[in-house]
């Protein structure tokens, strides 16, 4: 009733497709992170540690 059956005809695959899409992007991002140059990683990681002058 109330379209639940209509949705179920095609929508069951949404979870699978969504999982696949997210997994693909996740892998791409992990690869990107791992390939970041070390120089860039060290520079960025040190950004919060920069000093400032207070008066």
């Amino acid at each position, binding site marked *: 009733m109330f379209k639940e059956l209509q949705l179920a005809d095609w929508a069951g695959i949404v*979870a699978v497709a969504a999982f696949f899409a997210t997994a693909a992007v996740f892998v791409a991002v992990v690869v990107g992170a791992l390939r970041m140059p070390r120089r860039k990683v060290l520079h960025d990681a040190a950004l*919060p540690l920069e000093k400032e*002058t207070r008066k």
Partner: protein
Amino acid sequence: MSTKTVEYNDGVVRQFVLASIFWGVIAMLAGVVIAGQMAFYRLNFDTQWLTFGRLRPLHTNAAIFAFVGNMIFAGIYHSTQRLTRTRLASDFLSSLHFWGWQAIIVSAAVTLPLGLTRGKEYAELIWPINIAVTFIWVVFAVNFFWTLAVRNEKSLYVAIWFYIATIITVAMLYIGNHLQIPTSLTHSYPIFAGVQDALVQWWYGHNAVAFFLTTPVLGIMYYYLPKAAERPVYSYRLSVVHFWSLVFIYIWAGPHHLLNTALPEWLQSLGMIFSLMLWAPSWGGMLNGLLTLRGAWNKLRTDPVLKFLAAGVTFYGMSTFEGPLLAIRSVNAVSHYTDWTIGHVHSGTLGWNSFMAAGMFYWLVPRLWNTKLHSTKLADLHFWTGMIGILLYIASMWVSGITQGLMLNAVTPDGVLAHPNFLDAVTTTHAMLVTRMVGGAIFLFGFLLLAYNIARTVLSGAPATATVEVPLDPGKEGMGLARGIFNAPMLYSFLIILFGTLWGVGKGAVATISLVLLVETALVAMIHMSISGKKWGEWYERLLESWLPFSVLTLLAVVIGGMIQILPTVFIDQTKNEDGGWQKVYRPLELAGRDIYVREGCYTCHSQMIRPFVGEVMRYGASGRLAESIYDFPFQWGSKRTGPDLQRVGLKYPNVWHFQHMMNPRSTSPGSTMPNYPWLMRQRADLEALENKIAVQKRMGVPFPDRSKEEILADCREQGGAIVADLGKSGIQISPDRKIIALIAYLQQLGQYGKRPDPQPTENPGLETVVEGEKQANTEP
């Protein structure tokens, strides 16, 4: 190298810090009061603006938007200036942001106790305030992105990514869940109803936790934890993975708030799967935070800042372990609608948000006022009182929640409810509710220590001016929007997603061809990457330095999840659902009663969604159907049962029972903790407003018959008159225009349409169960 001096705008940071502490006290005080009301009904004082149903939204809104909101604005403005080595782009916008936000909070603090509400959790504020929130959020966004655009540091540190995700996603969620049509200056109906409204609400509600209470605080963690530990984050690469995976996955998990309801199965599966996937990024982030303390653990003994931050991150790990656990359908069957969820939420807000806020304040305030913290011992005392308060709170809620879940679902071997009286669960858990109140009070005491300590610190110093020397030419490289999005890595990702989806969706040849293309694309991408790996790395590196394409990709990441969940249920043919007899439009007086039900916050304690469990069906009647709420603006499925479900309460009790129950719930249900509602007998229902309300609902597709205002009022008089006449038989004299009459009219029709002679009997199993269940159950609302 030529340099210039940049002076940071810390004035607005100081303002947000102090505002956060002030509103934090108010929010926690309101929390302790309503915790007391749950245990001792007399604390409602028979006063409408002090009742639980009105104060609970005040507590949640104050905690989320006033306390944490001001805290994250302070943290974002302070750290962004340092990370970009740039003063905030506009002092005017910064000031407008601060004062505008405080005006919004004050408006909320006035309107919510008055009963002016939209009736949607964490989205209760009325439409004029919604517009103000949207405006101020835009001011915040412009100020923030403008600062990024003129920054003096090429790289965008990971904390800023979390801030970007926060600003973009909260804007999207807030607008999506606040689409509404006003019926008056203080009232409106959401444009969605029933299941659509439920999905949009929990897409918003869940992600308000994700993108208002989590991502900005993670950004704060990635800035202040290295700062306090005086060492860089444990793994910057892990923080990159943490960010993207969290942003991609979080947005999908909203349906886990609607598990085991009438929500389509595929959506429930989606919510559960993505919730479980959240374990990985959440724990990755937690470990990254804790491991940043490597070699500095000894400082925890003496440094209250690190103590609070480390405990806060640990609570983040604990609550993000518990969240996916509760999203498993079988666990959710026990935990949903119980205090367990309340305990889970507070391990996040008290343990994660409040402790991170405390750590940040103790680090920040001495620097902002160029002085030392007034008392480290007081800060330590705050830590331990806070810790004891949290543990008492969440442990009592675990015990209470699991007890409620098990008791209310229990069925004896003879096939009857083990605890047919709902109040058995209320009285059994009373000691836990008292313990929760005590835990909350202890936590509030600890926070008052912070307020005192900070006040003394502020008074001992003077506002400091912070400056930094930056090169005249910072050498920003970055890239434009087109180059950021249209490139080989993005193209390959898109193709892989496309072929993967077709493989999953398609059948026969389509599936085979898609699989072949998927494998080929992946191979080509790998070969291409090995040849032009440096170029790919360069793209990614420059993407992380380009706020605009970065923001667009973040928006895409969060939009996809919401679209896939919500759109299929929005674009359905509503008219077909009117044929099954499951629902019909409300009569005018019922609609007026429904608005009173929403106004009094009844949904904060009562659900209207019976789950398909033996215990629930026996107790309440046939499980809820989607179609039953298609005219419900807003939906009332609820999220907590301090009292029983009301989906089929109609005609279960006579009118006089409801009248007496609303006057004094103990008169009909001994042991009930529900407040008295004496003003409902005194106050007139706003029947004059019905014409406009009905007109608005008609615009949204509800098939109300065409009627003049007089005909609407005549219908109210007819229905109200019948109720008054019935009450008169019990010696009760009351005018038919009182609120109680409208409320009774509404309550008495709940669940009635599902009982009408059904044209399609095969689609309506369980009617016999309803009747049997009613005979057996001895519940009380």
